[in-house]
C-alpha cells in the first residue's frame, strides 16, 4: 500500500521539555496504527502536530504529495485529516443530532474546497440519522450533548470526526473514560464505520488488549522518540517497550527521568 501520511524529522520542544525528537514515520493507506507510550511520551503531541494544532519546531508533515506542516487545523481537516479528542469536544447546548448536522452541513456547503468532493448521499438530515444509526446513538438523538454520559460523548466525538468524511482519522485515547466492558463494543463500532469508508486510522491507546486486537502496526513513543515500530506482537514484546511503556515501565521510566 502507498504511503499517505509521512512525518519527516519532526522535532518539538516546549522550553526545556522535548515532546518530539526526530520523528520519521510513514503511514500506509487503509492501515490501522496504534500509538502507545506512557503519559508525556509525545503521542498527543504527534497527533496535535499532524492535525495542525501545534507547529513542529522543525521537520515537516506530508499528506499525499502535499506538505501540510504550515496549514491550520481547518485546512488540514478539509484535506481529509480528521481527529477525535481525549476530552470530547462537543457543542454542549446542541443535541447529538445537531452536533453531527453541523459537521455534515460544513461538508454540504463546503463545495469544491473539500478534497473529497463527493457529497454524503441523501439530505444532510438523512446522513446524520444514518451516522447516528451506525454509532448506535439514535437513542440520544435529541438529547443535548452536555447531558450525555461520558462513554456516549466519546462516541459522539468520534462520530463527529467521521461526519466530515476523513481519509485519515486520528483518535486520541478513544477508550479513556469508557468503562472496561464498553471499550470493545465502542472500538468495534468505530472500526466498522472506518472500514465502510476505507479510512486510515491512527489512535492513541493505553489499553494493550485494544492495541493488540485492532491494530496492524504499533508506534511506541518514549520521551518524544519512537522507540519501536512494527507489528503489534513484535513491538509489545520489545524489551525497551516493555521497560518504558508497558508492564514494569513506570518505575524504570521514572528512574530514567531522574537520570536526566
Amino acid at each position, binding site marked *: 500500500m502507498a504511503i499517505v501520511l509521512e512525518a519527516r524529522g519532526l522535532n518539538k520542544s516546549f522550553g526545556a521539555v522535548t515532546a518530539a525528537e526526530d520523528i520519521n514515520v510513514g503511514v500506509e493507506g487503509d492501515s490501522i496504527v496504534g500509538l502507545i507510550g506512557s503519559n508525556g511520551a509525545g503521542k498527543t503531541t504527534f497527533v496535535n502536530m499532524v*492535525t495542525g494544532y501545534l507547529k513542529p519546531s522543525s521537520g515537516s508533515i506530508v499528506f499525499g504529495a502535499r506538505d501540510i506542516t504550515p496549514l*491550520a*487545523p*481547518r485546512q488540514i*481537516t*478539509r484535506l481529509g485529516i*480528521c*481527529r477525535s479528542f481525549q476530552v470530547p*469536544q*462537543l*457543542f*454542549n*447546548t*446542541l443535541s447529538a443530532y*445537531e452536533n453531527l*448536522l*453541523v*459537521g455534515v*452541513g*460544513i*461538508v*454540504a*456547503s*463546503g463545495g469544491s474546497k*473539500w478534497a473529497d468532493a463527493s457529497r454524503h448521499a441523501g439530505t*444532510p438530515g438523512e446522513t446524520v440519522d444514518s451516522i447516528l444509526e451506525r454509532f448506535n446513538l439514535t437513542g440520544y438523538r435529541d438529547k443535548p450533548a452536555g447531558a450525555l454520559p461520558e462513554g456516549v460523548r466519546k462516541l459522539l466525538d468520534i462520530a*463527529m*470526526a467521521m*461526519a*466530515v468524511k476523513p481519509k485519515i482519522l486520528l483518535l486520541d485515547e478513544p477508550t479513556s473514560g469508557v468503562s472496561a466492558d464498553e471499550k470493545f463494543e465502542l472500538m468495534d463500532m468505530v472500526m466498522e464505520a472506518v472500514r465502510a469508508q476505507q479510512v486510515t486510522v491512527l489512535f492513541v491507546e493505553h489499553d494493550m488488549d485494544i492495541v493488540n486486537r485492532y491494530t496492524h502496526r504499533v508506534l511506541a513513543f518514549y520521551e518524544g522518540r519512537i522507540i519501536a515500530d512494527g507489528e503489534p506482537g513484535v513491538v509489545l514484546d520489545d524489551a525497551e517497550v516493555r521497560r518504558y511503556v508497558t508492564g514494569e515501565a513506570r518505575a524504570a521510566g521514572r528512574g530514567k527521568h531522574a537520570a536526566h
Partner: protein
Amino acid sequence: MKRDLTVSILIGALIVLLLAGPLLPRWAMFLINVSLCYGLVVLGMMLLMRTGLVSFGHGLYYCLGAYAAGTLDVLFGISDIAVMLLAAIAATGAVSTLLALLLRKYRDIFFAMLSLAFSMILYGLLVKTSALGSSDGFNVAAKTLFGVRIAGTEFERYLIFAITVVTAFVAAICIHWYRGSHRGRLAEAIRDNELRVEYMGASVANTVHINYVMSAVLAGLGGALAAISVGHIDPEMAYWTTSGEFVFVAILAGTGNVLAPFLGAFIFETIRSFAYEYSPNTWQMALGISMLIVIMFLPGGLWSLFTRMRKTA
C-alpha cells in the same frame, strides 16, 4: 414544524399590524413603530449572541445608520426614505466590514469593551462636529418615498409605520431562514466550541465576520428607521448607555426565536413608558427590578415562556 409556525406567525403579525395600524391610537402606533426599530437592532444583537458575542457598542451602528440617513438631507438635500435606508445599509456595512477584521479576533468582555471604545469614539467625533449640531443633533424629515411626496400628507405617520413593519418583517424572515441554514447553525457551534468548529473544517473567523456585519447592518436599519420615525437624531445614540439598553432588551427577550427581539423591545418600551408616566421618580428602579426578575426566573428570556407553554400544550 417549528420553523413553519414562526413564519406563519410572522406573516400573521405583518398583516395584522398593517391592517390595525390606522385603527390604533397614534401613540400606540408610534410605540410599536419605535419598538420595531429597537427590535431590528436587538435582532442584530441576537445574531451576535448566538455566536457567543455581546457588544456593548452596538449603538455605534444604530447611530451610524441614523446619521447616514440624516446627513443625506444636510449634505445633498436628499430625503427619500428608500435612499436613506440604502445609505444606512451601505455605511454600516462598510464600517462593520472593516472593524470586523479586528473585532473577529476578540471574545467575551474584550469584544464587548473594544466595541464600546469604538462607539464612544464615534460619539466623541459627533459631539465635536458642530456642523451636525454637536450633542444637540438635528432634525430629520423624510419627505418622499420612491420620489412620491409623503411629508405633510394625512397618512405620513402610517406610511412610515408601514415601512418599518415591512422592513422588520423582511429582516426577521431573512434571519429566521439564515438561522436554519448550515452557516447559521455554525453560530451556535462557535459559541459552544470554536476549536471543534475549526477541526470540522469551518472558519470561525469568517463566520464571526459575516454575522457581525449582518448584525451591524440590522442595527443600521434600525437606526435609520428610528431617525425617520422620531424625526431627530443625536450622538446619544452612540453613547454606551444606549448600547447597554440593547443588551438589556436582548437578554430580556431571549435568543430563542426571531420574534423574541421585537416582542422584547415592545415590552421594554411599554414598561419604560408607563414607568415614566406612573413613577417618574423611580422608573430606573422599576426597570432594574423587572430585569432582575427576568434573569432570575426566565434564564431563557421572555421567549422561554412561550417555548415552555408550547411544550406543555
